[in-house]
């Protein structure tokens, strides 16, 4: 049986990818950010996940306004790094797991989550930056990836509650997959940032840390934070944090915190990173 063994959340600021690609990741500006990922890089080497379900959003790279899927799952064989206007990042192709992805897609649809299926797309910094943060610069990524793209740009975006419930359904889907796989789920984006309008540059250390506390808690209160609170407190782009709730929902009620890191600023954004493991084996069976 496949199992979700851990959840990881991380910001996916494009500038972090630039820092890695240009070898600036240990300079005075980026050093303190990357130091917060050293623990996780070592841990990932020991954990050796077979597959990562990587929850992220596309930033006008694979999708334009022609089609706006709320939840979309990548069922393809492989994905190339997208050209976001500065040339594609020089990172390995992302290798999919079509069998597992289709199994999850089918299970989710039967579980009443009406997923969009993607067979071909390029993946942008939302997906490749977290891979670089967790794995550095290998010749090939050390695991397969199932991309799960969420609309967090055009409103209404999905509610925190819905994201959490999707995470729960993903866990049920993974646990009904016969192959013995070590699966991690990652939620990416955030934390506080605003990239538009006269209020641009807003950061909120206090609220971000409260959100991290809520993720660590043995309850699901965090799923009920309304969109307006993210918008007021964390800037217009802080809403990306609803994607972390898909990760958190997949871990069950109780979690252990393995690692936590917070740093301000990275360009326009507050960097947050947390590693959690499920502590409640019965969470799904009890549904």
């Amino acid at each position: 049986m496949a199992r979700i063994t851990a959840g990881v959340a991380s910001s996916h600021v494009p500038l972090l990818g630039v820092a890695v690609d240009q070898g600036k990741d240990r300079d005075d500006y980026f050093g303190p950010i990357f130091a917060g990922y050293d623990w996780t890089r070592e841990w990932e080497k020991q954990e050796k996940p077979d597959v990562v379900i990587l929850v992220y959003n596309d930033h006008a790279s694979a999708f334009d306004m022609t089609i706006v899927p709320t939840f979309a799952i990548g069922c393809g064989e492989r994905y190339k790094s997208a050209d976001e206007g500065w040339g594609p990042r020089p990172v390995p192709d992302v290798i999919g797991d079509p069998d597992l992805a289709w199994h999850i897609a089918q299970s989710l649809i039967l579980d009443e989550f009406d997923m969009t299926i993607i067979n071909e797309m390029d993946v942008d910094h939302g997906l490749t930056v977290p891979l670089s943060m967790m794995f550095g610069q290998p010749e090939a990524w050390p695991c397969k990836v199932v991309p799960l793209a969420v609309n967090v740009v055009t409103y209404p975006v999905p509610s925190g509650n819905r994201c959490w419930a999707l995470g729960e359904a993903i866990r049920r889907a993974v646990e009904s997959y016969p192959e013995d796989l070590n699966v991690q789920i990652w939620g990416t984006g955030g934390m506080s940032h605003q990239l538009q309008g006269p209020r641009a540059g807003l950061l909120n250390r206090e609220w971000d840390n409260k959100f991290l506390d809520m993720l660590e808690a043995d309850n699901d209160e965090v799923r009920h934070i309304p969109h307006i609170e993210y918008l007021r407190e964390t800037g217009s782009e802080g809403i990306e944090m609803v994607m972390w709730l898909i990760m958190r929902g997949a871990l069950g009620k109780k979690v252990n915190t393995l690692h936590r890191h917070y740093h301000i600023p990275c360009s326009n954004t507050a960097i947050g990173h947390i590693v959690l493991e499920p502590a409640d084996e019965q969470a799904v069976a009890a549904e």
Partner: protein
Amino acid sequence: MSKKPTQNIHEYLAEFEDIPGTRVYTAARARKGYHINQFAMSLMKAENRERFKADEKAYLDEWDISDEGKEALLARDYNRLLDLGGNVYFLAKLFSTDGLSFAEAVSTMTEYTFPEYREMMLNGGRSPEGNRSIKGGY
């Protein structure tokens, strides 16, 4: 699974207008700015970037964009473009066409010069104090 009552869409949208200095990318804005955003996306292709740079006005005239929208694009007036339904992730294709970093382009929407904006970010960013609600003033 917990069930909450469905939120009323009108109340949900009305609250967005109470956030200072912010244009939430609602369906209404997405509709209004559709051609502005699709124009920006066309700059993903090198050949289109070249044609645009050679004659910006002529390239814009190929699109179903209002005169006001074209003026705002030519002037790189990003706050005006947000009002006209532009979204920053799409407009970013124009930043990169201009060779501008994301942060520098973002700073043009604020009261600060780029060096001042960078300084604010290094000092912890813009405080949420007084920036959460127009009506509430908190």
